[in-house]
């Protein structure tokens, strides 16, 4: 079991979760690993929660896993939800400045959670908080939040920079490749070694 690594990507429909998952899968392929992935995307364009799982290793059997070693969340509330998917001592990489408020909160029926560091600590998870919106804006488009965040997450994933380059080139359409490469690099540079820790 332990030789297979599971990464779950969570966010809101329309945020590019599926593209980020495709880049990750292509990168693992570039490392010569076996990859299995699965996604629930029927509601992807209607603003619902989206979950995509990518698993890689020597040989991967199942396309799904109850718990992930790393959860990448492109939105703060989904980051909170993603904590529930995280294995003990897992890492949550979250775009903490991105808030997409659901209808029930807009109508004041439910409260948007606001203490992700506390919730992560309570679960014993390591949190890497990223201002992915600022990075994406700097790269040239707000739509690149997903890839900027993936760049940040790349610091805790066991792949060489060259493999990430190949993964990006394989998964991202040519006309938006450059801006996404910039976003990825900015994300990768934004996470300091102290945050990654031992």
């Amino acid at each position, binding site marked *: 079991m332990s030789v297979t690594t599971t990464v779950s990507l969570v966010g809101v429909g329309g945020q590019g979760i599926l593209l980020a998952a495709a880049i990750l899968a292509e990168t693992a392929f570039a490392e010569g690993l076996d990859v299995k992935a699965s996604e629930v995307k*029927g509601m992807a364009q209607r*603003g619902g929660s989206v979950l995509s799982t990518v698993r890689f290793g020597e040989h991967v059997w199942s396309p799904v896993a109850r718990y992930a070693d790393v959860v990448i969340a492109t939105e703060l*509330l989904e980051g909170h939800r993603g904590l529930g998917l995280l294995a003990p001592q897992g890492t949550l990489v979250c775009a903490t400045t991105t808030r997409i408020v659901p209808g029930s909160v807009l109508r004041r029926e439910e409260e948007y959670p606001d203490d992700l560091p506390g919730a992560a600590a309570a679960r014993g998870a390591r949190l890497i908080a990223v201002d992915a919106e600022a990075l994406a804006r700097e790269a040239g488009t707000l739509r690149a939040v997903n890839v900027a965040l993936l760049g940040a997450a790349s610091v805790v994933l066991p792949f060489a920079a060259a493999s990430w380059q190949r993964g990006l080139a394989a998964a991202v359409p040519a006309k938006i490749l450059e801006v996404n490469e910039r976003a990825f690099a900015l994300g990768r540079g934004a996470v300091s070694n102290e945050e990654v820790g031992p």
Partner: protein
Amino acid sequence: MERTLFFSGNEAIAHGAVRAGAAFACGYPGTPSTEILQTAARLDGIHAEWCVNEKVALETAVGASLAGVRSIVTMKHVGLNVAADPFMTLSLTGVNAGLVIVSADDPGMHSSQNEQDSRAYAKFAKVPMLEPSDSQEAYDFVAEAFALSEEFDTPVLLRSTTRLSHGRGQVIPRVPVVLGPRDYARDIGKYVMVPHYARMRNRLVLERLQKLRARAEESPLNVLEAGTADVGIIAAGVAYAYAREAFPKAWFLKLGMSHPLPYRKVARLFRQVSRVAVVEELDPFIEEQVRALGLPVVGKEAIPADGELDQDIVFRALEPFLSRRPPRRRRPVFPPVPRLADPPPAPGLPVRPPVLCPGCTHRAVFTALRTHRLAPMGDIGCYTLGALPPLLALDSCLCMGASIGMMAGFNQALGRKAAAAVIGDSTFFHSGVTPLIDAHYNAADGLVIVLDNRTTAMTGLQGHPGTGLRADGSRGPAVDIQKLCEGIGVRCHTVDASDYGVLEAAVKAEVDAPGLGVVVALAPCVLMVPEKAGEIVIDDERCNLCGLCLDVGCPALARGEDSVSIAGSCTGCGLCTEVCRRGALSFAGATGAGTAGEGAP
């Protein structure tokens, strides 16, 4: 009531339905089922109509059941294939007033293209099934089926075969069932089968099956009949009659309710005798379940698996087996009650259900429709999301194309325009045309709104015959929905759904008009329209946070501290400006006092 009648099974079912208080019957003709509806059409107290096909018939009957009227729908075995889509999900929603589906099998294929065994559908859909063995039972079991349907909140299958439907026998009439009123009450969690609600209903279905099995164990429909020979026979339907005549001294487990199978009654028969056979036409439906209990039984190695049986075939088939040395006695092993999956953890975080996109014009249709007192029957597509808070604009979602038939049945049952149908353009082409033809043919009242957003939006903007866009990207001829409706003979208006005033007026006109009408609410899917229609601004002074605009359920509108706020995802569709009564929301550049004149000639 003392008069004895001589009825075919089909006549008996029709009379039994009226006696059970059923007031709505429909179906599609098919041998050997046809005479059920033909008989019902001659009887007082029940409305009978031929439908355009079995799927539409079932959906129409579901509408009548929802309206509070006991309903029966008839078809031959292959017709249930056509009706399988609503049938399978109807098991999840259950019913309001009782609903009985008669499927008449044709062993031997006297007049059919195949010999399929309808009983598989009872197992498939996890619904109870009754199998009468003669005309009296056909008459009596209909009332039993309606009672089960309402008690267990499920459709009930009544299986006939050629020899029951077209055989004749004595029927002693019974005292009519007296029914109290069953009002319709909107229940979105029960009738709108979006994934979230369907998951909850599915658990109830699995629990219901266990309760039904407990009922089958104690039901007088399943009788253990004592014999004098050391032989037991399990049989249902007309096969029971054959076996009874062939082996008059045998013990019998006579199954009137053959699904779910009463395992313990089966085991009780095995305690009485040392040899047991299952006599059934077509598939080893009962036999396989008995074998799964670990009980040795004679079945399809002796009884033919194809064609009809009769007492001679049954006698010759079983006689050599029953004279052999009895098999060693075994203890039955009852299957465990299946466990259900762990429910998902509730982390106490706000849910994020999918929502209609900002600027989606379906929202305008729902806003216009919900000002009227019509039960809106929904269908499958993005617009099903209109059933969720805050819009709460749809009462049902059963299967593709079900909205129009359900509307027609609902209105026919109540004799007035009490329900409307809301269906997308792609869904209309999928299976909305046939029920529209049906509603017109049967003179059903109703209002059908076709949400024509020029694409199959939910699944990612695929083409359909209304747009002519093909899978390979090429363009074919486009079918005009309005011309299609008019060709059928149905009144139809196409309106611009992005013009709220026009849309609202068209909906109101159709609500007030007599008979059946269609409004095509036309506006391209907002996902295909990249540019913003305009900039909405808010006047903080005028906004009093009344929430009218929030009720349209647009994700771009939020309740702020002192006034409503508008997010960057706003497309400028302007629906919120239409529903605001204080002029607090308006297009930038226009003034709240309505003096904007730019653009006028």
